[in-house]
């Protein structure tokens, strides 16, 4: 059998209700910066689909809708480099800050404001 470690158990159960979310005036705390691997990403599930939360080598954090403008690939599963991510399905490259696709491919995905306070990551689900 398998067991979730205690720490993770609390994490998975860390579900925020919509009401609570609204009352937080849009900024919602999604976890600690350490929860996201450097040059990696984690997913925040929302009723409107997943949001990928990315961390760069410089510890900047960005959030994009987790769906590649090409064929919907999960960007959070890609490889992060600089301030960009390469989609895992067909290697399109996107800017993490704007969600824009790097030429010569074309397209754009929604990006969301993120702020970090005392090592805590806050996400705002009103798209930029």
């Amino acid at each position, binding site marked *: 059998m398998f067991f979730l470690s205690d720490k993770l158990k609390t994490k998975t159960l860390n579900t925020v209700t919509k009401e609570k979310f609204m009352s937080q005036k849009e900024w919602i705390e999604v976890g600690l910066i350490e*929860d996201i691997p450097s040059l990696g990403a984690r997913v925040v599930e929302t009723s409107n689909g997943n949001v990928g939360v990315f961390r760069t080598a410089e510890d900047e954090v960005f959030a994009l809708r987790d769906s590649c403008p090409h064929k919907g690939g999960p960007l959070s599963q890609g490889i992060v480099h600089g301030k960009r991510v390469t989609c895992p399905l067909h290697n399109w490259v996107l800017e993490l800050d704007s969600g824009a696709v790097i030429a010569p491919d074309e397209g754009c995905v929604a990006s969301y404001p993120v702020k970090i306070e005392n090592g805590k990551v806050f996400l705002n689900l009103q798209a930029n």
Partner: protein
Amino acid sequence: MNETKEKLVLIGNGMAGVRALEELLKIEPNKYDITVFGAEPYGNYNRILLSPVLAGEKTVDDIMLNDEQWYVDNGITLHKGKEIVDIDRRGRTVFASDGTTAEYDRLLLATGSNPFIIPVPGNDLNSVISFRDIQDVDVMLAASKKYKNAVVIGGGLLGLEAANGLMLQGMHVTVVHLNDTLMERQLDSEAGGMLRLSLEERGLNFLMEASTVAILGDQHVTGVKFADGSEIAADLVVMAVGIKPNIALAQKVGIHCERGVVVNDTMQTYDPRVYAVGECVQHRGLAYGLVAPLFEQAKVCANHLAHMGYSRYEGSITSTKLKVTGIDLFSAGDFIGDESTENIIMKDVARGVYKKIVIKDNRIQGSVMYGDTVDGAWYFQLLRDNTDISDIRDHLMFGQSHLGDSGHGGQNAAAAMSDEMEVCGCNGVCKGDIITAITKKGLFTLDDVRAHTKASSSCGSCTGLVEQILASTLGGDYSAAPHSKPLCKCTDFSHDEVQAAIKENKLTSIRETMNYLKWKSPDGCAACRPALNYYVLAYHPGEAKDDPQSRYINERAHANIQKDGTYSVIPRMWGGVTNSAELRAIADVADKYNVPTVKVTGGQRIDLLGVKKEQLKPIWADLNNVGFVSGHGYGKALRTVKTCVGSEWCRFGTQDSTTLGVRLEEVTWGSWMPHKFKMAVSGCPRNCAEATIKDFGVVCVDSGYELHVGGNAGIKVRATDLLCKVETEEQVIEYSNAFVQLYREHAHYLERTAPWIERVGLSYVKEHVVDNAESRKLLSDRFLESQKYVQKDPWAERASEGVQQHEFVSLMRVS
């Protein structure tokens, strides 16, 4: 803000100089205020394509590379139609003939070359011209409307292209050549003879071994006179007898010149503020007259202008094609040979095909091809890679395509394809799309075409076709790929150089490697990071730490991502053998987790498809409970070991192939490889396990075991080469270990055994694995040592030992 920028002035608005600017803008867009002077009254155009313009196949607009808007968009000041006549090197100022001046911090000379005008009386008459720029083409096109007879002096590349063009414009054309062979610098006399014949059939006339002594006429040309006293009529004379580097300006201002402006490996002249690239340059004694080497020079020059300061130009090997539509001709390297070389020659006059390959010490020195040039690019690659061809010598002449290809209906000659035919089966790109992209977007390299059209960017099997289309569309030598190819855009170093650096300097992490080799991007890209991660792990097992963030998602999640973002789970089924308990466990898992599809794979095991990421850990745990481990169906690693029933059951079986397969899988599983690796063991030469299309295959025979290597059944089918025969199972295992380790240490990341062996040669493998017992043992020992660190089931580590947990759960759910 501009005051702080350095000033860069380019003299010569041609192909090499502007390419250097483009390369510079790519890496350092804001370093310089750039000013360009060009004697010609245009933006930057593709000089190579003047021939098709003359032939009426293209217009001047078609061949513009950078129009004037490009200069504006990039903040470059363009002085077109202004020739620089002087340079004050102390005061760092250039002077144009019309009085315009510009100051510089750095200066780039790219003045190209001048056509050679033969010193005979009458060479300055009206309608005596050369073939170098748009103006020349305009004069020729105008003449073709008014006059009848054209004489082209010079039967080289340029002369023939000019003659062909004029003929297509309706003129009666005679080519006068001093030598007895056309294009003697590119062709041997056989190929030159065939070329002449077919040009004669098209309507060109030739006067061979004819030495011009005078151009006749009063003001306008009327004829040409030769050393033997004969004369022919002419209303237009085109001189195409060669070019000489345009060094007049450099010489005048005291920059050291010999035949060309002398530069070092960083493209600097003797004045360190002054760089030079292109046809005006002399590098290590050589001046080049084709664009491929000039583009390499431009890249190196940009690297130094950007103060990156590590790239070097080390000279080029060139290849040529003639751009006369309908005539296929290719030559590269030293194609004449001498006493020390051997030639392989194929001649079929009826089909109009001639091929010659010059070989020395089992390596290609050069080749000439006429009539069928499909394999030109392949030979050129073998030449530049210095590949030992002894193992493929017997079929070398028949080309690469005999190896088989899937996915494009056996099509391997782009020329025979119509525009609507599909070239890239993965991305649905037709020949016409590729041609349009090349001409409209000014693409030059395979990488450009991949980026813009996606053709050959997925499985890569159509790369050869795309290269052919590039070559025939650009006409000229498009092969701008430098002879050692950088690993990716983040570095100028090749795989070999990076591997050597990691091995010799004990670099045990990606970061260390990037620092040591001065990577150009802060943390690499999706191409180099997985390669570096593999290399540090392969060379320093036990010391280097794996970096999951530098692996593709499949290897990070230990499952294959599917198009809908779900995953597939393939447990290892040792040698394809299973039992009722295992099958029951798989059935239970399928029921418990509602797995949508259960499928038997092409590799003798079972695939559970459509699994959600959060289900992976519990499924693995359930599978682990009955003893299953990961099948690495997602990894650059050992995949399957296919076996047949062998002597246990089969009436023909000579050895216990099933047990041997299981043993091989037990030793080899878990190891990371440059690419995926498949094995098979067949119990007799009927070969039911298809061992001869595997990376490592064993065919059992009565007297022992045949070992086969380098097979591939995927994109390009390649049957194995026989490595050797051994007598015992123990030997099979030792040879297999040694072979795997040689491959792990020497192949480039993402290079399967088939292309690897074609690159290094089977003899090389035999030398290390068969002929030398000591080296075989060392390789095998190194492999076993590295296996100690990796033979842990990655599924168990994640399902029950707490490794990489963040990979499998969401950070949060907002409901």
